[in-house]
């Protein structure tokens, strides 16, 4: 075999393997869409479950997931953006900074079920919030921190140093410079990270298992100290815990969850692409 032949062979093999990676992804999405599309309609989205969840809709679970995502945002935004500003603008090259970076890397690596255990031990039991929206949002919020911090830091660092130099030389203080000249330009990037993080949080099951998720609730939660149903947990429950569940309900729930999370991921990607095109420096 000549060198040229082995090159051609290698490129073909590499291409074939890449197809092997890409095709199943499309198959999974196509599968869920094809089976679920028949179930999902306005009634399915706006009605509570009936007949032991075997009929009706998924409204309480969908609403619960949206509330949890909002709660996650409240927890993760101030701390996440604050930490990103700290790392990008204030942190020097010292032991403290290295500890913060190590912490973020490790937060990103901790398994989601371990966050669930932490939420149970710290928020549900120790702080006595009980199984509640607060406990769930705090757990999800902490889990989302590393995503928000790393994307926001990257966005802040991407703002050219000249912006800072000019602003400082005109007599602005450090914080004024960050507030008026760095953050506005970093905003699209920060937004990307937030949407990505919240999308991931909305799709998570393990962290909410013991902190907030309810198997079934006849009523909607009335305060943030109540439990709520949530879409990912609902999918788990109706596909493994309820015998005689019509498959259509399962596919429909999977489709709604998939669309909700993917639309967030895709819009984050879109914002990032548009931002890269429009960047003027």
């Amino acid at each position, binding site marked *: 075999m000549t060198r040229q032949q082995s090159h051609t062979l290698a490129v073909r093999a590499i291409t074939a393997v890449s197809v092997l990676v890409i095709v199943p*992804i499309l198959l*999974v999405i196509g599968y869920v869409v094809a089976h679920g599309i028949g179930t999902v309609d306005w009634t399915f989205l706006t009605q509570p479950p009936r007949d032991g969840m075997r009929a009706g809709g998924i409204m309480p679970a969908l609403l619960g997931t949206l509330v949890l995502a909002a709660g996650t945002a409240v927890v993760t935004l101030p701390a996440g953006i604050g930490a990103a500003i700290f790392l990008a603008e204030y942190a020097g090259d010292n032991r403290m900074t290295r500890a913060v970076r190590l912490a973020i890397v490790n937060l990103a690596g*901790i398994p989601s079920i371990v966050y669930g255990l932490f939420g149970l031990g710290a928020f549900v039991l120790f702080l006595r919030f009980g199984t509640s929206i607060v406990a769930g949002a705090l757990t999800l919020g902490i889990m989302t921190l590393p995503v928000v911090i790393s994307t926001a830091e990257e966005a802040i660092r991407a703002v050219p140093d000249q912006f800072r130099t000019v602003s400082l030389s005109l007599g602005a203080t450090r914080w004024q410079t960050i507030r008026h000249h760095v953050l506005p330009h970093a905003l699209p990037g920060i937004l990307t990270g937030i949407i990505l993080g919240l999308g991931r949080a909305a*799709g998570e099951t*393990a962290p909410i298992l013991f902190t907030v998720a309810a198997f079934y609730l006849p009523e909607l939660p009335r305060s943030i100290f109540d439990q709520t149903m949530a879409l990912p947990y609902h999918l*788990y429950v109706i596909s493994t815990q309820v015998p005689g569940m019509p498959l259509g309900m399962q596919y429909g729930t999977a489709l709604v969850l*998939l669309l909700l999370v993917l639309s967030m991921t895709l819009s984050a990607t879109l914002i990032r692409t548009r931002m890269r095109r429009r960047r003027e420096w």
Partner: protein
Amino acid sequence: MTATPAESAVPPEPTAPPRAARSSRLLAERVIEAAIALAGVSTVVIVALIFLFLLRESTAAFLDVPLRQLMGTRWYPIEGLFGFLPLIAGSLVVTIGAVVIAVPLGLITAIYLGEIAPPSQREVLKPIIEVLAGIPSIVLGFVGWVALAPLVQQLGATTGLTALTGSLILAYMALPTIISISEDALYAVPKAYRDGALAIGATQWQTIWRVVLPAARSGIVIAVMLGIGRAIGETMAVMMVTGNAANIPALGPGLFLQPVRTMTATIAAEMGEVQRGSLHYSTLFAIGVVLFVITFGINYVAGRLIGASGGPRRRGQL
């Protein structure tokens, strides 16, 4: 550099503000900057708190269950037998299977994206891989349960819910991490290396195989490590498709066609039913400690390697 609208919108102040106003503003800035530093430090505090709470809730298990029993081969909580070995073995088998599948696939896809694919293809393929990273694990678990498990059963297993089913799902969940970090590692190889190899007559494949891959070695090692970390901590999908049998899988050709139960799945499946404060409850937290230590170790070493090689700057996220 051209002036941006945001900059011209803020004119320099014509006169210095009165001293009182200035000092109160300085005070406000101090407060803001202190809050920012606090946010940074809070990440360290949170990691410490997570570990402390896991330890706090698992103390009883470590004190009251003899170490020999924790290292034992039987996990029967109802009879008070808390041997971690079957669960560790389950996690190990599923993770090894996932790595064996995901590492070659991920690395080769990264080579395709970074070295071979034309830019137009790359712009389509990369978002598809990001989509994979965005699919919730419960949805992948669901598809594995209704669609993949029946296929696996046709391979000759008594049930479709096996270690192999879990490994396949986990492999695809680890792929985005492995692909994105390996691609960064390939990207970090200086263009001069490739030019040099091509100039002395190497084919593109020889260049990739003999020059680019060895140069990107440390980044690829990091990609594999973080992929393992991702696989070992995955919970819901694995719980749905591995059959949840807490036995040490029998070695042999059918190793991957047996039902197993991972550490993560055990916590998720049993925590809902245990009495809070019981020994069983505490033991589940002890499994959490084991998982925390494993993933902390993996990420710590990977983090050090990244620092040492000056390699990939972007972390696990796509």
